[in-house]
């Protein structure tokens, strides 16, 4: 049984101009100790998915349908108090801005001790010892001294380490990390990622890593889900998705990342931009930007289909349209060659 199962999750935002669907019928699972990357551009619904799982959707957002199961137990319909206990004990959270996850008025130690004591029976002295142990574990120098300092006395990287310590302090089975490195400098980013990877390996913690940064995914995740306009476009082993992208969107996304050593005058460019939630195209949401779109893409929404080792929501891979898998593979391979597309609007 997977650690976390998300089945047909739909997240909606009722507004006075109608209900917006931020996450539209996605299903995924995370196994014990696995790192699942969820990648997408702003507006793809990736953070919403994370927030829905930990039950921290900002109102008026709500889970409209679908199920979320943690170790086989439904957690999407729990009352607040029960969910809060799960959040502390079985699911940890790490957010983009470490400053907002820490209370500026309390010392780092007090916040750690409080969290530890809420979820375990440790005495204050034991909890404090555990807090210092955790700070050591996340690589904070002189933890005995630092434990009594306040968040503002830490640098950005150090603060994120404290947040990680806070997330890990009761040994959760799953951590939802939403853009944990985005606010950090590149050299610090590498430190934090290495730390996260090491700790999860040691503790056997599964991670759902939500980010826009393919680079972070490439070196951290075991599997990756690529999201577009509230849906999963492609999901599979990270190597398969990155090196052998099936969905034209994933393909374009990979091509648009500049990289050192690849000399090209122009970057591959996906024309247009992610649709707003208010006007998501019918059929495949990507069809107006897709170089391979045909009639069916404009009318019928594709579901995930298994292709090789991964799953892709794209009609190119559906046999019925007279495009068998070989042909579509060729088509996608050609994307790279003729990908210098003129973009209109950014």
């Amino acid at each position, binding site marked *: 049984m997977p650690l976390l199962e998300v089945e047909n999750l739909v997240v909606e935002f009722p507004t006075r101009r109608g209900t917006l669907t931020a996450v539209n019928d996605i299903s995924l699972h995370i196994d014990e100790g696995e790192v699942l990357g969820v990648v997408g*551009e702003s507006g793809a619904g990736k953070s919403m998915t994370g927030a829905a799982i930990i039950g921290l959707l900002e109102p008026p957002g709500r889970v409209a349908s679908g199920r979320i199961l943690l170790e086989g137990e439904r957690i999407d319909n729990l009352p607040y108090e029960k969910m809060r206990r799960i959040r502390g004990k079985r699911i940890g959270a790490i957010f983009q801005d470490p400053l907002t996850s820490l209370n500026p008025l309390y010392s780092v130690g007090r916040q750690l001790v409080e969290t530890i004591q809420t979820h375990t029976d440790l005495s204050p002295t034991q909890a404090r010892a555990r807090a210092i142990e955790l700070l050591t574990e996340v690589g904070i*120098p002189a933890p005995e001294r630092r434990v009594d300092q306040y968040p503002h006395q830490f640098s950005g990287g150090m603060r994120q380490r404290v947040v990680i310590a806070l997330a890990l302090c009761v040994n959760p089975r799953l951590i939802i990390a939403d853009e944990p490195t985005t606010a950090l*400098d590149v050299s610090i980013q590498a430190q934090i990622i290495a730390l996260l990877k090491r700790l999860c390996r040691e503790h056997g913690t599964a991670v759902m890593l939500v980010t*826009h940064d393919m*680079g972070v995914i490439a070196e951290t995740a075991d599997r990756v889900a690529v999201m577009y306009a509230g849906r999963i476009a492609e999901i599979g082993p990270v190597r398969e998705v*990155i090196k052998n992208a099936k969905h034209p969107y994933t393909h374009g996304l990979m091509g648009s990342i500049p990289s050192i050593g690849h000399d090209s005058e122009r970057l591959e*460019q996906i024309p247009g931009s992610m649709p707003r939630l208010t006007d998501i195209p019918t059929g495949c949401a990507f069809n107006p930007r897709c170089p391979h779109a045909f009639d069916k893409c404009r009318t019928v929404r594709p579901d995930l289909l298994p292709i090789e080792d991964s799953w892709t929501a794209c009609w190119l891979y559906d046999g019925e349209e007279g495009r068998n898998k070989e042909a579509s593979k060729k088509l996608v391979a050609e994307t790279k060659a003729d990908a210098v597309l003129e973009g209109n609007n*950014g």
Partner: protein
Amino acid sequence: MAEAVAKKREARAKIRDAGGHEVAMLKVQGLKRYFDVSAPWLNRMIERQPKQILRAVDGIDFEIGQGETFGLVGESGCGKSTVARLIVGLYGPTEGSIELEGRDIAGLSRQQMAPMRRRLQMIFQDPYASLNPRWRVRDIIAEPIRAFDLAKGQAAIDARVGDLLETVKLNARDGEKYPHEFSGGQRQRISIARALASEPEFLVCDEPTSALDVSVQAQILNLMKDLQREFGLTYLFISHNLAVVYHISDRVGVMYLGKLVEVAPAKTLFTTPRHPYTRLLLDTIPDLDMSGRERTPVAGEVPNPITPPPGCTFHPRCPFANERCRAEIPMPRPLSDGAIVACHGIEEGRIPDGPMLTLPARPEGLA
């Protein structure tokens, strides 16, 4: 349209000095900018604290040739954005000179600067903050046209604004709208259109794509390259993203704590990085080729620029630092292949060459 472009190209024929040598578009020498970040006077007296000086930019030299793209890269707080603001005159320098095609513009007053401003424009990082939310796009783009008196009459201004919008691949009718009606990438295009409105020769771009999604970043980078070719622009491109800098730049300067530690042609810099900090930065680039290379987590963090370490400011994080590095400030020295490096170790030849740097194992995170 095509005629105008040809004319512009001609006008941009490289300016040469008396000896026939090409004059650099921008030449920065000994540029320094200090900020006084002390507590208020009264507090300082009561708490007996000394004045605190932040050396945001602490003596840098570089040149940008006409039509060239010079990339400036470094982590947050290294002073790269301050350099941008010094060049466009948002800050006055504490010391040093900034020459635009041979004319020193450092510390000129607003009036004295006026004739130079038209030729020197800036693109900002945050597409949500760089456009006045209360103005229509057409007024935003027309502002420089009106300020420099580049078109006579409303009709001419409107036509020019429409042109500019189309130049950045937007619709001429978009001028009627307000900034909030556009996506981040579209706003950055508007920002670029405004910068182009005064027909500048030199654009200072401060992290122009950092706030954008990758697919939109690709659109903007491509657009910037196209515009450079079309109008013969010179760019100073500032970013923390090495891959982006590599992609767009001809030459690259690496900044650390207010100083340039290495300047080299882009290819040279990325294939044979010299300065240990440059190597560190290259090591932190995520590996998208899935070659299995692990990022080497680099020890330590950028020190507080108010109290920088003595000697070479990088020495606390540098695995090759010795006594000299801790005491003596290294001067930038040119190497045979055009790179300029400020490092005692490189000068003495005690740091091995190599595309990448394998740092000695250290407990991660301990400075």
